[in-house]
């Protein structure tokens, strides 16, 4: 058995890997802008890197029934096909002793179910599991698929004759995080109304105390009426604040996901531009982690707000 050095490899293999890495680093350095500015004249022309040009709105590729289809929509379709394909393929033959793919999927779903139940309790966790898992899987697949080669490198002719990229990370188009935030908002309100009836809306329109105190004023009880009136005003104000905070939640969700993903995309573009091939490696790791964390945050916050909407105040007061 050859002598084991670092990384578990024998010494010749380790030396070979280091030499390959150094060669990639040198070639990348020379072809990037740093090498070009230092040794500009002696380098051949084909050893250059084009300047990255991140555009914020997603570019249209073609039109379908009058709707402009952008490259981020195509990437979202790819995600959907991937997710549905994996789920469909694994669940065709479910066995009692699971195969590898089935046990991997079971592990993932079991972990997500235990996450939901740890935050929302046993029964509610099972009720909120579909929406939370859908949001989590969709966001994480979008984020991780956009790291594969092909995203941002395949060029096609766009709708106005401009060359555009065929695929772009779906989370970097602001419409997708907005759509997910709206879905989350609608589901929070729906579950709140379904669990507590229309009295759930009484959290936002809190005029009960106000009308009661005006009734007291009319019946001649001035002191109780006036203090009740003050409390009524404060209740109405708190109700307006609650409404505002629900609506601002949509914007906050949108910008959190969009900002993280766009910043990551621009970071990868710049890192790949400065020293190609080598410098972008740690940033890829960072992007993997950020994709996972952002998916967890989006679905976790949805879960927390769902739990708050469903719990009645009598339970919270204990």
């Amino acid at each position: 058995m050859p002598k084991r050095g670092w990384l578990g490899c024998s010494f010749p293999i380790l030396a070979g890997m280091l030499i390959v890495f150094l060669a990639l680093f040198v070639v990348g350095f020379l072809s990037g802008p740093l090498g070009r500015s230092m040794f500009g004249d002696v380098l051949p022309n084909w050893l250059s890197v084009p300047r990255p040009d991140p555009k914020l709105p997603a570019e249209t590729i073609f039109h379908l029934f009058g709707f402009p289809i952008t490259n981020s929509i195509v990437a979202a379709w790819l995600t959907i096909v991937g997710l549905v394909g994996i789920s469909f393929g694994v669940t065709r033959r479910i066995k009692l002793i699971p195969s590898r793919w089935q046990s991997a999927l079971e592990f993932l779903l079991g972990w997500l179910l235990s996450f939901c139940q740890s935050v929302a309790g046993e029964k509610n966790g099972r009720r909120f599991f579909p929406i939370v898992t859908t949001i989590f899987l969709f966001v994480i697949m979008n984020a991780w698929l956009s790291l594969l080669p092909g995203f941002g490198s395949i060029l096609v002719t766009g709708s106005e004759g401009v060359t555009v990229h065929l695929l772009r990370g779906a989370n970097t188009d602001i419409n997708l995080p907005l759509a997910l935030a709206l879905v989350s908002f609608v589901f929070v309100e729906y579950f709140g109304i379904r669990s507590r009836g229309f009295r759930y809306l009484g959290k936002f329109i809190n005029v009960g105390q106000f009308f009661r105190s005006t009734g007291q004023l009319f019946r001649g009880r001035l002191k109780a009426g006036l203090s009740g009136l003050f409390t009524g005003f404060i209740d109405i104000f708190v109700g307006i604040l609650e409404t505002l905070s629900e609506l601002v939640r949509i914007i906050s969700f949108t910008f959190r996901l969009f900002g993280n993903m766009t910043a990551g995309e621009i970071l990868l573009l710049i890192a790949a531009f400065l020293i190609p091939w080598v410098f972008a490696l740690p940033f890829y790791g960072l992007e993997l982690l950020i994709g996972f964390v952002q998916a967890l945050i989006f679905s976790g916050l949805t879960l927390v707000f769902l739990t708050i909407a469903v719990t009645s105040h009598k339970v919270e007061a204990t």
Partner: protein
Amino acid sequence: MEPEVMKMLAIGLAVGLGMLGPGLGIGLIGYSAMQALGRNPEARGPIMTNMILSIAFAEAIGIYVLIVAIILAMIV
């Protein structure tokens, strides 16, 4: 002052001043999480979960600043 110079100044000031808050905030959250972990290493699960959640809230503010900077940079 020319518009180009003003634009550069605005972007730099926005990002520089705006990232102070979230940076300090995340540092404070990490500090308290480390303290809690030191006192009670068995409660690692809930502490880490809540820490990640709080850091996401604080980081969102920094992302708003980034959006403003990107929008400013896109004005020609």
